[in-house]
Each structure stands twice: as C-alpha cells, then as structure tokens.
C-alpha cells in the first residue's frame, strides 16, 4: 500500500476537524471536531508504525495511548460543558464572553 494515501487522508481529516473547531458554536460539537483531529493523528501513527516495521510497535502503542487520552479528554470536557450549562444556561461558546475587556466588542 502507498503510505501517502494514509498521510493525505490523515491531513484532510485533521483539516475537517480544524474547520469544525473554528466554525461550530455548540461546545459539544467542538468536542466532536477535536475527536476527529485525534483520529487523524492515530491514522498517521499506525501508518508509520506499519511502514517502518518498528520492533517495539511504538506507533500502534501510542495510538492506543491517544485513544485513552481522548476518552479522558472527552470526559473532563463534557463535565466542564455540563457545569457551564448549569451555571450560564447556554453552551454557545460565542456567548461565553465574560473575560473580554469591557468596551471591546466581539464581531
């Protein structure tokens, strides 16, 4: 198999994740886009592991670690989102602007 297919797929999936993080307004959807980016990284790790025939299999092991980290991240992230919803009544990240300087208008 040609390795560039896997790398290009990972790059495109990562860019879709970047678009989601920047364009989405709902915090849960932003978390979903972050998951897409983490998955793109996993494709790269697995592809390079198989390509380089690593005897320690570090690529696939790191992919498993990234999966565990993603689970931890989404757990804590959702706890924060739920707490923000409880305190502010919204999860629209554009409306959570309490730390902006007074007098500075967001577009």
């Amino acid at each position: 198999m040609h390795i560039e297919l896997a790398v290009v797929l990972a790059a495109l999936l990562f860019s879709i994740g970047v678009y989601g993080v920047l364009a989405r307004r709902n915090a849960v959807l932003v978390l979903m886009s972050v998951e897409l980016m983490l998955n793109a990284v996993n494709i790269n790790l697995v592809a390079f592991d198989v390509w380089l025939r690593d005897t320690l299999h570090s690529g696939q092991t790191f992919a498993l670690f990234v999966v565990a980290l993603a689970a931890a991240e989404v757990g804590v992230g959702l706890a924060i989102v739920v707490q923000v919803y409880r305190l502010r009544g919204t999860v629209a990240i554009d409306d959570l602007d309490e730390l902006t300087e007074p007098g500075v208008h967001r577009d």
Partner: protein
Amino acid sequence: MTAQDVVFCLLGVVALGSALLVVTTRNVVHAALWLVVTFGAVAGCFLVLTAELVAWVQVLIYIGAIVVLLLFGVMLTRAPVGPTDELDSGNRLLAALVAAATAATLSVLSVQAFHGAFVRLDQPSTAAVIGSALFRAWVLPFEVISVLLLAALVGAITLARPDVGTAGSR
C-alpha cells in the same frame, strides 16, 4: 494501485464524507451519528493497515464509549434535537479558509515527502504482538496513562457535582 490501495481509498472517502457531515450538519444528534460512521471507516482503515488491535479498540472505545458520552452531553445540555441554524458561529468563511489552507499545506507537504513510499502489509499486528510490546517495553507509560485516566475520572466527578458553584459551597 493495489487492491489494498483501492479499499483504503474507498474507506477514506467514506470517512471524509461523513466527517464533513459531522461539521456541517444542522442537527446535533445527526452529527453524533455521522461521527459513528467516520470512526467505523477509520477502524476499517486500521484493519487495511493490518493494525487489528487498534481497529477493535477504536470500535470499542470511540464508537462504544466516546460517542455515547457525547450523546449524553447533547442530552444534558438540552441541545435542540431538530434542525437548527444556531450550531454554526459567524466565522464559517474564515474557518473554511483556515481549514483549506491547512489541508493544502499538509497534503502537498506529505505527498512530496512520502511520494512512492510503499509499505508491504504482510505482518499482521495481532493483539498478541501489540500486547507483548505494550506490557514489556511500554509498561511504565501504560501505568502512567491509567493513573491519568483515574485522575480525569475523579476530576470529572468533582466538576459535575451538583453543589459546585452554587451558593452553598462558597
């Protein structure tokens, strides 16, 4: 193009198409369900790359746990279930520009860097192979990751406690 290339391309097209739907759909629940399709297609890509264990871990943890957790988040924040225009912020055009620039840069760079590199897929990394590597060479990072998971669990419980942030706890 070998048969593996063709299968990988088809799975990649499915993954990219459903990922695009995740970030553009106007329905939160549909976004979570398209995320399942994306993760499934990426798991298929791992299988083509002979990474058997990573593929099943992907199915179990991403599709089985993370998507369910995200659906819980959708439910608990009382997100609108029907289609709505409130999911996208005003900077969609800018975001599309940045994403297109990222995609172009990364794709061109990686095609130039890995042009013609060929991987022979004749050594399947079964659970036995990866498990032996994980519990011999990588056992200390593995334990650190489990401590991190425990810390994240405790942190999530502490954050989600109902009395945090109310008048009684201050």
